[in-house]
């Protein structure tokens, strides 16, 4: 088994096809069902949704001192919106979970293996 990070990306300022309240609820419900399925099949390890990038704070070393600044680390339009950590047999299994989630929320998902987690 390998651990994979499924990161859900959102693109700042990109007009996504607007969802009606009903579609939003449907999407929410769908995500709930998928997470339940992940848990019952032992694939789910951890997941989380993040606040917008403007809530981020960056801490770094500068001239030997720790400097704290406002803002996201990467100056990019693409940001991490949330993620799942799952356990899967192989890439095909991980991609199958990612496909379900992307269908439910219509946002791109990056699938990446964790280093050093192969059992």
């Amino acid at each position, binding site marked *: 088994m*390998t651990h994979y990070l499924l990161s859900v990306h959102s693109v700042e300022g990109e007009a996504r096809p607007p969802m009606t309240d009903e579609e939003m609820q449907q999407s929410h419900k769908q995500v709930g069902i998928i997470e339940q399925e992940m848990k019952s099949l032992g694939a789910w390890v951890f997941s989380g949704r993040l606040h917008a990038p403007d809530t981020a704070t960056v801490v770094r070393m500068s001239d030997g001192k720790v400097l704290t600044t406002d803002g996201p680390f990467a100056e990019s339009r693409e940001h991490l919106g949330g993620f799942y950590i799952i356990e899967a047999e*192989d*890439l*095909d299994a991980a991609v199958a979970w990612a496909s379900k989630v992307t269908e439910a929320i219509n946002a791109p998902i990056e699938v*990446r293996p964790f280093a050093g987690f192969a*059992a």
Partner: protein
Amino acid sequence: MPVIDEAAAGRIFREESGRSVAALIRVFGDIDVAEDAVQEAFAVALRTWPGSGLPPNPGGWITTTARRRAIDRLRRESRERELLSEAAVLAPGGYDDCGMSEEAGPVLDDRLRLIFTCCHPALSTEAQVALTLRLLGGLSTVEVARSFLVAEATMAQRLVRAKHKIKAARIPYRVPEDHELPDRLPPVLAVVYLVYNAELTGPAERGLCSEAIRLARILATLMPDEPEVDGLLALLLLTESRRASRRRPDGSLVLLGEQDRRLWDGALIEEGQAIVRRCLRRDRPGPYQLQAAINAVHADAATFEQTDWSQIVALYDQLLAVAPTPVVALNRAIAIAIGEVQGPCAALALVDELDLDNYHPFHATRADLLQRLGRNSEAAAAYERAAALAPTDAERDFLRLGGRASR
């Protein structure tokens, strides 16, 4: 005892190494271990075969020798436990020393698993083709680099990255299940077709065509229910049947209309046409089957003029419906013009609508149509444009000649 020199050993190695690499990956679950071991086995073969003669089953000899080398190496590096446990996960059925023996029952060919691994959609198209050539075709990194026209170091890096991704992300070494095949088969067929065309359009002969045909045969044997696999095989066989007539001694391309049909290979044509007929009976046409059918119609004609052009145009109509690309549209327009189904004027109107400004056959076709319409200076300009875009010197010269002749 058959005498064996280095060149013959090299040929045998190329034919057999894909099978050996694939078998060793199944057993050890590690591409690098498999590749290194097969290379070592080949080095041993080069040392021993010229003296001892060719063993009765050279492929089996290489696989067995490679397996022993791999086990030795794993023991030596005392990573055995770690890797063998990985192998147990990757290879259902697990590791055992007899894993290489002939298995009873309908066992899927290891090479089929390997080609689906090489052509996994998580890898880039370039990596898919390169890995297929390297692992299944037994080409060296230098040879793969040459067929892509890139530096060896660039190709080496690309191959290392792809193999690392297979390992780290755990791209599975398996044949997709039936319900996954519709999505997973097209890249595999596309790669085999690219491997074939890499030689056909490339600057030199490199044995890639026969390699692609071999791969297509394996796929067709192992997936008898997929008509597009048959279609690809038939297309390759029928294209291959014209090899001897396709180039002039200087290397320039001879167009279909000017090819000496006596040089066409009758056995390949017969085999290809039989497969096309089987496809027709199944009536599940796809792009490869339709292209094969077009080639089968050409092969039927005793002369270019006697070609059944209306059937060819009908097949192109069907092909355009399933694969609406500008190149297909261009070929359809050419068939319409040559077959005088509508004549050069109508064909030129069809061609002029296409957005293929960087494709040299587009300009060559325009040039030919303009010339037939007596618009000679426009034809010359189109020949010049085609020549400027042509990939080889021989083709450039040929097109420039066409341009001069029309002035």
